[in-house]
């Protein structure tokens, strides 16, 4: 396919959907004359169709497939789930995922929060915040490449210089270069750094808005009471922004559960760094194990549900303020 064909196909797709919307609206204006409420269904129709075929059916099918074997033919009940919780490979995957999900949200949120407080009202605030937020605009693959380069290793031999920033700093401080991405279990933490680097900007943006929304009279009252900077943080700021903090924590947690790009690009899941989302991909599309892959996806789904429910509750609390 050459470029012009691709661009034409793209235009075709857009026109097609605009046409679909047009047809829907036409049908809607006709139905309106007959029955007011039927119109609602016409407006909803395309979305419901897409959601049913594209989300509901596949989700149900995956749950179903998770009870079958690798080829999807023989029913094996909870066999796949059993494998996830007993095989040593899978247990490692679970352990790593837990480490990711516990550490990333708290570290990213802490950095975002502290920076939001620090930069609040500072000169060049807008530029500084843009720079911190910038990693969110680039793909996780690009971010992984950026940091893979930072972690690059060159052996400690005469005449060989370091090209990775981290090892160079270590050498300048008198240490010897390390293969950061190869040594388990610390390599997982070096991968987590990338996710934190990306997500801290998000935390900062949300929390900065929350901090700026704290009513000034509360802050004035606290100042008049002679509260210290730390006291202000602990007794005024933090309680006021609590719902936003929880929304940030849970959103980052959900994103972290699904993190796949970083692990795949930097280590391919090797050297003991594998996580559930990456293992899902490996099992489903490389090992062709539909059963286990589906079970891993369902596990991801189950893990996400309580966090999302909590997230939504907190979102409502922020809206209500």
């Amino acid at each position, binding site marked *: 396919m050459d470029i012009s064909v691709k661009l034409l196909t793209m235009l075709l797709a857009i026109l097609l959907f605009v046409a679909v919307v047009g047809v829907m609206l036409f049908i809607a204006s006709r139905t309106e004359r007959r029955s007011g409420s039927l119109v609602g269904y016409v407006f909803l129709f395309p979305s419901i169709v897409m959601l049913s075929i594209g989300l509901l059916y596949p989700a149900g099918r995956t749950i179903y497939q998770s009870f079958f074997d690798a080829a999807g033919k023989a029913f094996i009940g909870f066999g796949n789930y059993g494998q996830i919780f007993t095989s040593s490979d899978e247990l490692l995957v679970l352990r790593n995922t837990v480490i990711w999900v516990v550490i990333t949200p708290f570290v990213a949120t802490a950095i975002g929060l502290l920076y939001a407080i620090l930069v609040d009202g500072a000169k060049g605030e807008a530029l500084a915040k843009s720079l911190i937020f910038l990693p969110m605009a680039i793909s996780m*693959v690009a971010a992984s490449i950026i940091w893979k380069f930072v972690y690059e290793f060159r052996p400690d031999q005469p005449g060989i210089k370091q090209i990775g920033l981290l090892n160079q700093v270590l050498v300048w401080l008198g240490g010897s270069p390390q293969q950061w991405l190869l040594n388990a279990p610390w390599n997982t933490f070096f991968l987590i750094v990338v996710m934190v680097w990306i997500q801290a900007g998000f935390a900062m943006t949300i929390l900065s808005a929350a901090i700026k929304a704290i009513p000034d009279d509360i802050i004035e009252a606290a100042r008049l009471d002679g509260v210290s900077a730390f006291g202000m943080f602990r007794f005024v700021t933090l309680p006021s922004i609590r719902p936003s903090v929880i929304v940030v924590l849970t*959103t980052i947690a959900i994103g972290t559960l699904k993190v796949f790009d970083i692990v795949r690009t930097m280590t391919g899941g090797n050297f003991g760094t594998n996580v559930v989302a990456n293992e899902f991909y490996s099992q489903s599309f490389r090992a062709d194990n539909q059963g286990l892959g589906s079970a891993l996806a369902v596990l991801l789904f189950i893990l996400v549900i309580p966090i999302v429910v909590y997230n939504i509750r907190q979102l409502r609390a922020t809206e209500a303020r």
Partner: protein
Amino acid sequence: MSTSTPHLDLATEDKAVRDKMSVAGRAAANAKKRVTSPMASVIAVVLAVLWTIPTFGLLVTSFRPEKSIKTTGWWTFFSDPQVTLDNYKGALNASGTAGMGTAFVNSLVITVPAVVIPICLAALAAYAFAWIDFKGKNFLFILVFALQIVPLQVTLLPLLSLYVKAGLAGTFWTIWLSHSTFALPLAIFILHNFMKEIPKELVEAARMDGAGHVKIFFRVMLPLLTPALAAFGIFQFLWVWNDLLVALTFAGSSDVQPMTVALANMSGTRGTAWQLLSAGAFISIIVPVTVFIAMQRYFVRGLLAGGLKG
């Protein structure tokens, strides 16, 4: 000499108005009134610069000759600058895996419809949920809302089978349809929230003039909805442009693969070819970074409006 917050004398009506504002509204209102110490400003800027160093390092590397990259650190660039565009040429025309040039076009072709389609469909659905009364409305709304929870991993395998059966495998349609479907629950939710905020009086007035739902949708809703559509549009644009999983699953072949896939492949097969990887990475981020910088305001607004994509 302390620089504390200037004392504000909030009149009662002022306070009442402020209490009614959303978080984002109050943040905007308060934004100009806080002042902090110069020391904090300096630290903040320094930290921001440090934060950007890894990105900067790769950018510098993308312009250095291959030999320099492999033997010296990029920080030596400032004492011995050697610039070349060979890396970019090499990345754009890379053979084997699709060059970044083809991948760039693919990214564009994939992303634009994947933004336009869900916006169109979600606008219709959101309007129905916000302003039309029909049976089962609440149930359907909760269902659509709850679908945001479904992680897309859970849908991939069956969708792939469906596409293969429908003969769509390996075309752009698989990605367009997938991304559009995944975006719908959140899009409907966000647009619905924006639509609800449109004053009832405007809708009533239009209805007095005899306008049906379709007319109201076009004449009243759409014009007022432009900021929301922009916010969601940018959000979706960045999300699709930077996506790896959906692209890898449905567009694995080199003819239709976007830049994220091309880059991931490059990293896998030419893992130490930093001259290509650096240039490739920067080719892939130039569009999202530009979009982000130009539209930052809308993007942030989208985030604060509940566009929290997990």
